[in-house]
């Protein structure tokens, strides 16, 4: 086994050159928003809606900023504390999502300062929103939080794009998928009318079509990269992924994102072809669940160095959609319908796997069953986040069922998205040290049970 990066970069843990270049897209998003502000174009504060709401907003000329990201940014740069204190003093419970509390505090400061970002606001601050694009998907915070923000931006409307989320078994009831898609399309028509009315301009459906097509292209390529990662040794690791996901999750319609993934693909492919591992002496292949401890990504470098552990695949929700079979698009010309398919298929793509293993829900947890096989993994590193709910709710359940049904053991290491001190690197490290034995044991168990890899 050869390795390209003898020395894992301690701080970021990134091993790909392209991963190092990906920060360009984060900066680009910020720059676009600032430019929009200068040009007087409308700015929306948006949740990630798995492309359901963003593509349409952009097609009509709105620029989007993502307060969830801003939360991560503030936490990493030490600017969150002040915002959290304000949120608490406004009366919001301290148990709410950390990113939400951060943006509530920031919103209060912004409104008190006549909607000019305060001096020294992290990253220059977020500009005043013309509207909020909330989401009914994944967690309650994602619409309740923006609804709460109206208190500070009294005239900005809040729009919640909703997504059907039937149970796995129910999804397969005759006609239910179609019913769900119809709901989304009708709902998106309402959303378009809302935007047109608010912004005083008509949606250009040709432009939307272009955006949607480009998005599918970029996502397909990002998925190709995921497939390459099945190779042993793993050609890239979690720390690489956390950087390269930005363009496909946030800017998939940007042709530059597509060009970028071509480069990522080439770099990863070159490693696969030459059997080059991202880390030296890969011994254990791990899945990682939820967001990583951003400030301590070097931790993964340590795990690689000391134990030969590689994060070969991570949290399903941040990955590109699995390809939709061509025939599903037959006769589909309305871009709203394509958007509906994109988001709905993403959220239900592992329902078949959920049925196969008799586990629920199909989102957030079933993917790990497929990942375990496809990526030949030895364990799950679960990183529940104290103040981010959605995947955390199912992490223990995922860990239990993976152990029971596939003999893939899991280890739980607490962390948070805002209070970065929750992650105790030393303690985490000794837990991982002990986990080596557990993985060895389960390897034997899998052999005995005739479960491949």
């Amino acid at each position, binding site marked *: 086994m050869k390795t390209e990066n003898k020395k894992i970069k301690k701080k970021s843990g990134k091993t790909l050159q392209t991963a190092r270049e990906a920060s360009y897209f984060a900066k680009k998003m910020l720059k676009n928003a600032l430019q929009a502000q200068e040009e007087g174009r409308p700015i929306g504060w948006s949740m990630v809606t798995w492309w359901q709401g963003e593509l349409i907003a952009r097609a009509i000329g709105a620029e989007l900023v993502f307060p969830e990201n801003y939360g991560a940014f503030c936490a990493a740069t030490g600017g969150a504390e002040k915002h959290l204190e304000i949120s608490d003093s406004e009366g919001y419970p301290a148990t709410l999502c950390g990113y939400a509390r951060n943006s509530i505090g920031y919103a209060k400061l912004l409104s008190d300062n006549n909607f000019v970002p305060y001096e020294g606001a992290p990253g220059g601050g977020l500009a005043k929103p013309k509207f909020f694009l909330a989401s009914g998907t994944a967690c309650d915070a994602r619409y309740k939080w923006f609804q709460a923000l109206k208190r500070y931006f009294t005239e900005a409307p809040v729009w919640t794009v909703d997504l059907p989320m039937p*149970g796995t078994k129910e999804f397969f009831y005759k006609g239910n998928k179609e019913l769900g898609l119809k709901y989304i399309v009708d709902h998106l028509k309402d959303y378009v009318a809302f935007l047109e009315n608010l912004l005083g301009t008509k949606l250009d459906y040709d432009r939307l079509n272009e955006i949607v097509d480009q998005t599918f292209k970029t996502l397909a390529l990002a998925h190709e990269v995921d497939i390459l990662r099945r190779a042993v040794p793993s050609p890239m690791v979690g720390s690489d992924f956390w950087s390269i996901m930005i363009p496909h999750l946030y800017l998939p319609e940007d042709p530059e994102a597509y060009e970028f993934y071509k480069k990522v693909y080439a770099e990863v492919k070159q490693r696969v072809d030459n059997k080059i591992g991202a880390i030296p002496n890969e011994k254990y292949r791990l899945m990682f669940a939820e967001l990583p401890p951003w400030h301590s990504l070097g931790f993964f470098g340590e795990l690689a160095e000391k134990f030969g552990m590689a994060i070969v695949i991570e949290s399903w929700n941040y990955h590109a959609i699995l390809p939709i079979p061509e025939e599903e698009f037959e006769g589909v010309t309305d871009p709203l319908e394509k958007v509906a398919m994109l988001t709905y298929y993403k959220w239900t793509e592992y329902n078949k796997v959920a049925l196969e293993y008799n586990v629920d*829900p199909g989102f957030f947890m079933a993917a790990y069953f497929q990942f375990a096989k496809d990526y030949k993994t030895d364990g799950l590193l679960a990183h529940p986040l104290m103040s981010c*709910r959605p995947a955390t709710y199912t992490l223990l359940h995922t860990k239990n069922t993976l152990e029971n049904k596939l003999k893939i053991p899991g280890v739980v290491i607490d962390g948070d998205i805002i209070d970065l001190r929750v992650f105790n690197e030393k303690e985490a490290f000794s837990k991982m040290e002990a986990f080596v034995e557990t993985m060895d044991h389960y390897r034997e168990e899998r052999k005995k049970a005739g479960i491949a890899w």
Partner: protein
Amino acid sequence: MKDINKKTGLARAKDIYNHRSKRARELKAEGKKVIGYFCCFPPVEIMTALDFLPLRLLGDMDEPITVADGYLPTVMCIFYRSTFDLGMKGRFDFIDGFIGAHACDGAERTSYIWSNYIKTPCNFFLDLPHVDKGEAVSYFKGQLNYLKETIEGLAGKKLDIESLKEAISLHNKQRQLVRELYYLRKPDPPLINGSEVLQVMISIMMIPAEEGNALIQEVIDEVKTRQDIPDKKNGRLLVWGSLIDNIKFTDLIESSGLNIIIEDTATGTRPFWHDIEETEDPLDGVARHYLQEVKCPRTFAETDTSYKEDLENRYSYLKDFAKYWKVNGVFGNIIRNCDIHGYEIPAVKDYLESLGLPVLIIEQDYSTASLEPLRTRFQAFAETIG
């Protein structure tokens, strides 16, 4: 109808409240099937129409959570962690069907995890849109059809429209009776206290609708003529927020100088305040009712108005409650990690305080063991509003 223990009215409500699954087990022994459901969104009318006993699944503030810790993380709503804990301990082992619901994160994720570990002959997950628009109602109606088909399988028969219409009338009657019961709290002091009302409310969620209706009627008749009415107190309280399902909590509040007058919660007014409209296809009325009329902040009402108008749109019913029942203070009850209500706090406070109503917000741990320290806060609140 079988009269358990020959008790009537308030005494019977107390008995059912104390032995919540007793009647269900009795009926089950007689061959009736029981469906356990989460929160106030799975339509009980459909269950009643197919001869099931709908049984609301609740937690237990008296029971320490032990088993659930290995399945549901502590950042999740403690009420649902408790409910699941009871399920894992076999408290609901007699139910034939389980209906989970996408009411809130807690209900949704617990529904999934529940059906993985607690097996019942039949289960269904009811998806519920987050918005109340027309297209959402159509989708929801579709989900109700699937729910109906699923439990038809368990019932071994098809639902006929007439039975559904009858069940709707029966449950509408229950709604009307609940409102009548609440009207008895209008005088000062109220004719019935919060703990008694809670016992009735929990009871009617544990027994068939006809029995529930008879029970409420008995209670109304008894209360109208009773001599031992509650004492007059400083505070006439509106309770808003997460549900309360244990009288140790209401007793604590009411022994702190406050009378509970009305509860805008999932065990209070929410499932009962609006009647299901009669529609040609009864499922239309049912779908509209649950998605558009059950006033829970889990359903998002789109708004492009100003903040002030938005508050009016979301909470004007609270103003009506406060005026009609002449309340002079509001207790905002938040079960820890209940995001749905947590995000509402400053907004609901803004609104209520603009009406001149003082608001006490308490986040609590859904455990009777940790109630006593709250007493001083209620007492202080009672003094300030008196």
